[in-house]
């Protein structure tokens, strides 16, 4: 699929996938919730039900790809068992089973996600672009990058001895396919999620309410903030030549907000949904746009992926405890791989390289861990210096997202050139005053709420003491979702990764 055919991608999924923001999911969730807790005294049945519900959720899109998940799951399960059973004496066998599993999984990922891209790039370079006979035109299985990485982490952790291999196949299937985080993360580790499926869960009222609250916030971010921005962004990115620089800059800023609202919204819904089932998932976003430098941004953006790359690629390569030349290489590799993980297009690679260039000076000067605390801790407002740092980091992120959003590097370049050369040619074009009002209010609400909750476990954690005030707040959010959402179903951007 061409990288930036967002609208085609949306249309493709709208009628096929059981999105969180779909009527189907609204029916699916209460049924699964009820049956799940009816089975709470029978762990194996409960896990079997989780697997069945998750496979139904995924198979709603295309049942054939269930075979792929099942195969990936089985490979990792068998690999983990074999690694452990060969014992520490047979290092070669252990390595063989580990690398066998890694190669199989990466091969599947490579064929489905990257084969056509590399074949086309090869043809562009050496065959004059004629690649029709080389291309496979395979449909990209939704969420393949997420569940592959999750399955891989298990066998690596077993190999490293950080986790014992599980003997519970059902629990392992549930770990890989747990529907809230199956298609767009957070990418869980076996060390934290698998044990939760191996022991009985108990319903906890407070956790469930907190989960509902987090889901509500996620829906608001996705359906009001992100989708409202998307309408404007898609319009401008489709025909950048038709608009002036201020409009292009506004679209880039709104895409920055859109992708955050979209992906962090999805993560909030997934984490909140998991809480309803007594399952705790790791935090995936921690107010990244309140970061004071790019290093802090990367500690707060897509945390589950960043830490995955850190733990399974960066540190094994030596991390930052190697000579400076090697640090540069390690950092470049990690960012380029991270870029490529997002999709088969050179723009993602360029996006990774762009962030590597921003990150490298910090790591070489030893300043990459400067900001590990929350910004303006103990204060209501940031200092002028902090505000300036946050705005600069935000601006740098905006420029990166242009690369991420454009169809090609050339288009991104043209976009930037046009944006800066006509920046002062008038005010930005607005689609309508109503849209501008909705976007402004929604973004303002999101910014204020997330700022207030920046030191909390999630961005909608802090609540008024009185129930009527809390319920008034929830009702206001529900009203905004119901009244100002763009449509009822717009797929999440990260599904395509």
């Amino acid at each position: 699929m061409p990288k930036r055919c967002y609208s085609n991608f949306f249309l493709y999924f709208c009628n096929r996938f059981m999105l969180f923001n779909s009527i189907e999911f609204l029916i699916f969730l209460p049924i699964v919730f009820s049956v799940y807790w009816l089975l709470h005294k029978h762990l194996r049945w409960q896990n079997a039900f989780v697997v069945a519900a998750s496979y139904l959720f995924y198979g709603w899109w295309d049942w054939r790809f269930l075979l792929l998940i099942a195969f990936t799951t089985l490979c990792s399960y068998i690999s983990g068992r074999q690694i452990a059973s060969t014992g520490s004496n047979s290092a070669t066998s252990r390595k063989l089973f580990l690398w066998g599993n890694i190669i199989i999984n990466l091969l599947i990922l490579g064929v489905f996600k990257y084969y056509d891209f590399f074949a086309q790039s090869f043809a562009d370079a050496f065959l004059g672009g004629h690649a029709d006979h080389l291309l496979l035109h395979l449909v990209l299985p939704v969420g393949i990058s997420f569940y592959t990485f999750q399955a891989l982490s298990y066998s690596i952790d077993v190999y490293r001895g950080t986790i014992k291999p599980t003997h519970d196949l059902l629990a392992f299937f549930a770990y890989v396919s747990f529907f809230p985080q199956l298609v767009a993360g957070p990418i869980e580790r076996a060390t934290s999620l698998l044990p939760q499926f191996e022991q009985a869960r108990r319903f906890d009222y407070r956790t469930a309410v907190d989960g509902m609250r987090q889901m509500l916030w996620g829906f608001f971010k996705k359906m009001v903030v992100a989708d409202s921005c998307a309408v404007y962004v898609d319009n401008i990115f489709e025909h950048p030549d038709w608009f002036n620089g201020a409009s292009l800059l506004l679209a880039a800023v709104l895409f920055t907000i859109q992708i955050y609202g979209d992906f962090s919204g999805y993560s909030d819904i997934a984490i909140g949904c998991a809480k309803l089932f007594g399952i705790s998932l790791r935090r995936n976003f921690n107010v990244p746009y309140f970061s004071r430098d790019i290093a802090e941004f990367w500690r707060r953006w897509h945390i589950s992926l960043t830490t995955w790359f850190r733990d399974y690629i960066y540190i094994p390569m030596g991390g930052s405890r190697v000579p400076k030349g090697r640090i540069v290489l390690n950092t470049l590799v990690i960012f380029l791989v991270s870029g490529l993980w997002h999709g088969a297009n050179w723009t993602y690679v360029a996006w990774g390289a762009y962030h590597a260039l921003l990150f490298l000076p910090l790591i070489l000067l030893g300043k990459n861990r400067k900001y590990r605390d929350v910004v303006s801790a103990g204060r209501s407002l940031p200092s002028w210096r902090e505000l300036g740092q946050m705005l600069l980091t935000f601006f740098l992120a905006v420029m990166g997202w242009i690369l991420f959003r454009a169809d090609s590097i050339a288009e991104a370049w043209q976009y930037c050139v046009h944006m800066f050369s006509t920046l002062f040619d008038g005010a930005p074009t607005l689609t309508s005053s109503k849209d501008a009002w909705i976007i402004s209010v929604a973004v303002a609400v999101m910014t204020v709420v997330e700022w207030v909750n920046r030191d909390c476990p999630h961005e909608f954690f802090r609540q008024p003491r009185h129930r009527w005030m809390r319920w008034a707040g929830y009702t206001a959010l529900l009203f905004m979702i119901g009244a100002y959402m763009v449509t009822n179903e717009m797929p999440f951007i990260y599904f395509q990764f």
Partner: protein
Amino acid sequence: MKRFIKLSVLFLLTAAVPYVLLMWLLGDMGWVRTARTEMASRGFLNTRIKDIANYHDVDVLFLGSSHCYRTFDTRFYRSHGISCFNLGSSNQTPVQTRVLLNAYLDSLSPRYVVFEVHPDIMDQDGIESAVDLLINMPLTCEATRMAWKSGNMKAINTWLYAIYNQKICHRLEHFTEDSIMDDAAYIPGGYVEIRKKSFEVKRYPRKDLTIQPEQMAALKDCLSMLKERGIPYMLVEVQDAEQLRSSFKNHDWFEAQMRALGPYRYKILPMDDRVHFCNSNHLYLPGIKLFNEDFITDLKAALNTIEQDR
């Protein structure tokens, strides 16, 4: 667990009341508008629906989208002795046609139906047309079902606002739409004449035509409704400008789909995009004249066949 379920249900019930009240209160307030609240539109559906009361037992009923109400000039057919009514509306998809037929087919009681079909319309979700209907026609069970079945909040919110608009404020019955809006004029009988051309030369990317399954199902329902009443029909596709028409990769496939449903007419007349078209997919006055003069032959033949069968 019981407490959680009890409070969740209680919250949803409690939240529903302010939701509905806010929808009514903010519904028509400028920037905070929450639904389609304005009745007037360049498609003149409000006027058209009120106009239905003046027509009974017509020879021909025209159904479809803007291609229908901007093409089939009722004055022209009347001048040839054919009584007719044009029940087209903006972006009307078969899902909305079904609602309109349920409400008005028996009162109009046509001898023959011309059902305008267009590839772009068959691929739409129909929400724009649904809200147009909801705000402009008296609420019926079928319209309510359409709003809720769409699963689209814009349609549901408009339905909520329509209750307030019609049942509490009685605005629909007291509202009178201007018969001329900018360059558009409503002609009694349902036709809308557009007096300004806005043709732009554009390059449309090549695309595959598709049909939404729910639109196909609704189209079949509409045709079954006609068959049940013994009303013959013809599916008609009005030609687009060459620049748009040439972007359809698989129009043959679309034609085959339509032909499978009954008599289907798609005739390309020699027209010039810049002269005969208002925009890429709507004919302009000379094009409309050409089209209707050609179409009336087929229509008369169809009406004669009905007469002979009787």
